[in-house]
């Protein structure tokens, strides 16, 4: 999947995401998820890395379901009563649907993220979708700075410890320290940002000539077919849901 245009991947993940958010039934989510999982071996992401990227999601998705299970609107047959919580069949169905849906929507997005170089995406956005270069390259540079900000945050914490204001007082003092440190991070980020802007300007960024692109962003028939494939999966999922009568349009 590394050779597919990032724009095609963005479209594919977008189509699946939007279509799957239109209904709250378990069927369409399961169908989409089955297709996605079946295609996963061809995504070109090592299993280990994929697992690491999916971990937060695998933890979060059941919790989203759990909330529905415990605090849902009720309806259907009562399955269990756990103290203050009454769990009904409708709630259980909805909880399962939500869990599966979160996974089905997020999986393509995670694969998109794992197989796409931000630089290539920026190339596509600027050259094929003709978004302004200033905006695209600025965002690209900002993404790189996020990594630096994480390092800065760590150093700021260490620096505060070294300055004697690292740990004292109760939770309120801790909160104030956190705010103070966040402020300092912001200051440093702004400073880094302006230094980077200077460095970019020093390399003629935003010069009054038409910018060229060193890397050519391409969009081939194969990329088109990739999007069609995603649309097909979405369509099949919707059809199956409608045919089984499970489809429930969220806006109704």
């Amino acid at each position, binding site marked *: 999947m590394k050779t597919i245009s990032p724009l095609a991947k963005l479209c594919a993940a977008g189509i699946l995401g939007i279509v799957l958010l239109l209904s709250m039934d378990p069927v369409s989510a399961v169908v989409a998820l089955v297709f996605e999982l079946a295609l996963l071996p061809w995504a070109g992401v090592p299993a280990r890395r994929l697992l690491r990227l999916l971990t937060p999601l695998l933890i979060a998705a059941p919790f989203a379901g759990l909330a529905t299970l415990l605090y849902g609107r009720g309806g259907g047959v009562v399955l269990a009563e756990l103290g203050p919580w009454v769990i009904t069949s409708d709630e259980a169905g909805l909880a399962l649907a939500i869990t599966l849906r979160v996974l089905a929507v997020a999986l393509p997005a995670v694969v998109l993220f794992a197989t796409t170089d931000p630089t290539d995406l920026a190339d596509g956005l600027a050259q094929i979708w003709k978004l302004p270069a200033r905006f695209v390259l600025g965002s690209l540079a900002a993404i790189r700075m996020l990594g630096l900000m994480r390092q800065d945050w760590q150093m700021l914490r260490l620096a505060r410890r070294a300055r004697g*204001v690292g740990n004292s007082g109760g939770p309120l003092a801790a909160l104030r320290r956190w705010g103070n440190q966040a402020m300092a991070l912001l200051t440093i980020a702004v400073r880094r940002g302006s230094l980077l802007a200077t460095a970019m300007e020093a390399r003629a960024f935003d010069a009054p000539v038409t910018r060229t692109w060193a890397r050519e962003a391409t969009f081939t028939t194969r990329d088109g077919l990739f999007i069609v494939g995603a649309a097909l999966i979405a369509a099949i999922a919707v059809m199956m849901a409608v045919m089984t009568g499970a489809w429930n349009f969220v806006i109704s």
Partner: protein
Amino acid sequence: MATLSAQEWGWQFAARPAPALNNVSFEIALGERVLLLGASGVGKSTLLRALAGVLGEDEGTARGELLLDGRSPEASRGKVGLVLQDPENQVILERVGDDVAFGCENLGVHREEIWHRVNEALALVGLNVPLTHSTSALSGGQKQRLALAGVLAMKPEIIALDEPTANLDPAGAQALKQALTSVADSTGATIVMVEHRVDIWWDFATRIIVLGADGVLWDGAPGTLPEETAHVLESAGVWLPHRTVAAGPQHSGSTVLLSTQSLRAGYPGSSELSPEVNLTIRAGEVLAITGLNGVGKTALALTLGGLIPAKRGQVSASTELQESAKSSGPLHWRSRELLTRIGSVFQAPEQQFIAATVREELAAGPRALGLSKEEIDAQVDELLERLHLQELADAHPFTLSGGQQRRLSVGTALATKPRLLILDEPTFGQDAVTWTEMVSLLSELRAEGHGIVAITHDEAFVKAIADNVLVLGGEK
């Protein structure tokens, strides 16, 4: 061709009472190799940014005239390529090839030509990595060469460099010099460089321009600098080469403060480890730690300072240093317990600032110790004077020059009189006068019985003050 001309040029930053530069006049012709010297805070970097046309109109107001081929530098983007001081903040893209290509793209160079230039520039600076190599995986020295390559690929007529070797180890600095020499020889570009490490560049330069508070102090070929003028310039803080730094007397300390056992340091979450370190730090002794960029010196300093856990082995404080603290491992001390025991001064001063004025910054430590207002004031006043920061007492720490920030960050650690002081690059960005001040300040601290650990690339500093030297990851 490209002639740079300044006529009584000056610059005043918005919200600053005095101009950063005043009355600067010179003419620089194509192919000259100019070394721009001057005391700390005299406005050298500002001048370079103005030459490169990246000094924003909203940042302040100009006086006089600064012209590049008769036009303002802003109107001739691409003619001047600027390499900045800190290699970290000028990496723009994630892949080496793309980063070098960035300037060419902005100038509208054709695609085939861009890649031709990229390969040529990388070869010239001697950065032999694949075009797809990650820029974040490069060492400091490599990043600096990458920045130079990015500027070269634009084929500028003038290359401006702001302390390009400041962050580099001696080997990296030599490599950059070689790269720049072959660039200048093969392209004939004009070079304008600000640099404190004049010894490296003296034979490279064809002309020296010394900036002072009111215009150019001296202008001429390196060999023609009269002896008397040299003395005047040195006492004004200008670095000149071959300044013989007297080797300081060796001291041998008394009480052991801190020792390490089979210690290997590294950043949390990183798998890179420093070489194994077994050292003993005594009171009244200066230990210098040197070594190549990227060998783990900074991680070692943080580990010794009780700020990050040791990856392997351990750091143990002597009972003398430990005093009432519960553990012998500085990592387990409370933040306030560190204050009077181990003071750490980071490589990047701005990460350490926590207050809105210089005065408040110096008062923060003593206040955390619970000293009275009179004691704090007395201490802060003394430090301000010692560090030459009196006039900046009410300035915001972030608005100080690099050299001034460095002195302030050392001052914040001194304010609580820690038994052991750990300094990461203490002489970074200092001019000749403040450098000497820093050395004598540290000597006094040593005489008072403080232990000092200094991470440094500065060979003169090592010679002047170090009692012991540890070369991390090297034989020497």
